[in-house]
């Protein structure tokens, strides 16, 4: 027995000695790591850097060497190429960026240093990638087979029937450290952290994402529940669930002039002919309490008018239809583990249950007057001197109009805005309708003139309320004129210029807020 202990001690000495040698040789890696990585991943690689608590998902803990994006089997270490890939392109949908500013040698130094945080790399043989076979190809039949494999492997248990991360088990998911983690929204392939190609998705299905609830399906495949071809077809199907690339940002919602009548509700087939515009949302990180990890990362907007009335359809993905007691555990975990930046979360009751459930909400923000030139109210909720005109909706209170004098301040206004909303399969569809001419308080829209608009969204089940929101900068809506649209060319140039300027301002402000 004693000799066993002695052997272990010797082995530990050898191990530590070897690691020490590596560390000495890798001063470059240490310097780069301390400069670029430690703020999130922690000086000792424990995933506990100063910014970690504002991130969802949390940064990796290098000491355990559990890596999500690998070409190796479940529980295996990643290859150096796997790690290099992540340093090159980052992890989409998370706060991990790619590092094009680092040279290949610098990245290799960082990789060696990161590996030295864990004894697993030194202990074991070099990891080998799995044999992934070859893709039998896509096409309609492959997609149908892939849809069947999606059901057979019960992907919907977490990802939902439509893939929006709203499966029955989604509210209870946590990572290996107990932090809440979302089932990926497969309809936003551009935000899949392992990449959006069929190859990427196929690899993730067979290797799983270690440290997360996403398992490896390799034993299911090897036992014949699905064939190797069907796993490829599943990857084709998942890749087809939404746009592969992040939708192009186009600054202006073109509100078409309807040839015959306005759509009557959010499911009216007439919307099928109307162009949808995508606007990304980012966390509200200007005013305290800031929200670094908003649930809603973008919204789709469509508009149409008939010269006297206008109708809008606003759609966004949110896996929870708040308020919903099924998400109580999720809400409690978010509020307990995330950096709330001073937001005072209501206490849980004696049984550990949440006492407050917030609704989902969205806000469209306009100026009160069609601006003359590029001047607009402050994008974050206006100011006392220059208030903003708001269209508000929440899953508790429906639609309304309001006046905002700073973010979080909404004074209700009477108005003729009408609207209905429906949540289905992880997606809200909000239908809004209003006369083009406003009543006493509000904005009268003009045809052919770009009108500033900005958006905010809240997911109540993630404790998003008040300033804990997802927000956009200013964009524009443009009501199409009847005969010709030549008049809009000059304003469009102005729009593009001011839009770019606004974006720079927001980025700067966000950078400052984070620093």
């Amino acid at each position, binding site marked *: 027995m004693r000799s066993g202990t002695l052997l272990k001690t010797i082995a*530990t000495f050898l191990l*530590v000695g070897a690691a020490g040698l590596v560390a000495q040789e890798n001063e470059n890696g240490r310097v780069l790591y301390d400069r670029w990585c430690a703020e999130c991943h922690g000086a000792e690689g424990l995933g506990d850097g100063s910014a970690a608590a504002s991130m969802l998902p949390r940064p990796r803990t290098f000491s355990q060497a559990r890596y999500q994006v690998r070409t190796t089997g479940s*529980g295996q270490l990643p290859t150096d190429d796997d790690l290099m890939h992540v340093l090159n392109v980052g992890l989409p949908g998370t706060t991990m960026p790619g590092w094009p500013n680092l040279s290949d040698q610098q990245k290799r130094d960082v990789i060696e240093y990161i590996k030295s945080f864990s004894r697993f790399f030194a202990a074991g043989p070099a990891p080998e990638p799995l044999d992934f076979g070859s893709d039998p190809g896509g096409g309609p039949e492959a997609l149908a087979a892939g849809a069947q494999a999606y059901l057979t492997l019960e992907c919907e248990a977490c990802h939902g029937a439509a893939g929006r991360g709203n499966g029955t088990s989604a509210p209870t998911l946590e990572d290996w450290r*107990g932090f809440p983690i979302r089932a990926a929204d497969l309809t936003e392939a551009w935000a899949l952290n392992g990449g959006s190609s069929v190859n990427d998705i196929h690899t993730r299905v067979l290797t799983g994402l270690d440290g997360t609830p996403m*398992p*490896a399906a390799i034993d299911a495949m090897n036992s014949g529940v699905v064939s190797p071809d069907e796993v490829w077809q599943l990857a084709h199907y998942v890749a087809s669930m939404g746009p592969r690339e992040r939708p192009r940002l186009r600054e202006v919602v073109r509100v078409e002039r309807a040839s015959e009548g306005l759509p009557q509700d959010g499911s009216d087939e007439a919307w099928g002919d109307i162009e949808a515009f995508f606007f990304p949302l980012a966390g509200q990180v200007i005013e305290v309490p800031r929200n670094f990890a908003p649930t809603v990362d973008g919204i789709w907007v469509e508009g149409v008018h008939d010269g006297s009335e206008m109708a809008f359809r606003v759609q966004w993905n949110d896996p929870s239809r708040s308020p919903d007691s099924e998400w109580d555990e999720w809400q409690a975990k978010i509020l307990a583990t995330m950096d709330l930046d001073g937001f005072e979360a209501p206490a849980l009751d004696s049984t550990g249950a949440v006492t407050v459930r917030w609704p989902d909400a969205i806000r469209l923000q306009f100026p009160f007057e069609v601006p003359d030139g590029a001047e607009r109210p402050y994008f974050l909720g206006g100011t006392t001197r220059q208030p903003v005109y708001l269209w508000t909706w929440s899953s508790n209170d429906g639609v309304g109009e309001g006046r905002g004098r700073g973010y979080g301040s909404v004074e209700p206004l009477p108005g003729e805005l009408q609207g209905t909303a429906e949540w289905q399969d992880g997606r809200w569809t909000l239908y809004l309708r209003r006369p083009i001419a406003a009543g006493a308080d509000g904005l009268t829209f003009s045809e052919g003139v770009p009108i500033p608009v900005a958006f905010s969204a809240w997911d109540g089940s993630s404790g998003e309320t008040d300033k804990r929101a997802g927000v956009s900068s200013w964009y524009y809506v443009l009501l199409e004129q009847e005969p010709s649209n030549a008049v809009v060319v000059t304003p469009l140039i102005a729009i593009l210029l001011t839009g770019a300027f606004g974006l720079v301002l927001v980025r700067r402000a966000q950078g400052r807020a984070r620093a």
Partner: protein
Amino acid sequence: MRSEFLKKVSVLVAAGAMAACGGGDSGGGDPGGDAGGGEAPAAAQVDPATVGTISGTINFAGDSPAPTAIDMSAEADCAAGYGPDGPMSNNVIAANGRLANVFVHLTGVSGGPAPSGSVQLDQENCRYMPHVLGVQVGQNIEITNSDDLLHNINASPTENRGFNISQPRAGITSNQSFPLAEVMVPVRCDVHGWMQAYIGVVDHPYFGVSGPDGSFTIPNVPAGTYTAEAWHEAYGAMSGSVTVTAGGTATLSFDYSSDMAGAHVPLGEPLVIRHGEHGIEVHRGAQD
């Protein structure tokens, strides 16, 4: 011929040892009792003249925690497998002054190579069976799904590498093993957040798991004095001493109580390599 004969003898001895160990767990034999170490392994060759048996009891003082109902409404097929009271958790079972699902193992002892037999971990009616099990370093764990629905088996050790495997249909089997000792390896099903199991990995065959009557048996222990450690997921860990005599039965008991609810529950002990100012130091301890 001679060597084949010897092989047969050693297999018979091993089988006998397994049967003895199974007998030790027979206190937990009723279907509601989910504790047990499966087929607890035994050293390949045991000289009965040099070994004894540890017969143990896990006592529990204070109010027994009420059995916890599980909301299985999301999985009607699983819920249908239970009686009129509905699905109950098999995680913490304390009754009649005894505590089940306590993993007991000797420390500072090593015991040869792992037996060739597998330890079973089943998923049945959306619960792990057993809830707590022991296995030897390197020994195969055969994980099967008896439910015709998706489970994932997500093991998060800290000393060993983990795994996370999906089993979307009944009858799928996954084989896993751990190369290093670790008490305990947590296992969970993320599809069904209530499903949790713990695997104690030790580098010898001297371990047991208490059944619903609080009893456990560790057979074929070489004579000597040992430190034994007990581990429970809610009431924490404790240690005791036991002296085994050749051919004898030593008793060993651990006294848990309701006051220990919320105790620190050690789970593995990750080895953290710290990059300090003066090179590298090794730090042991919980990291989260």
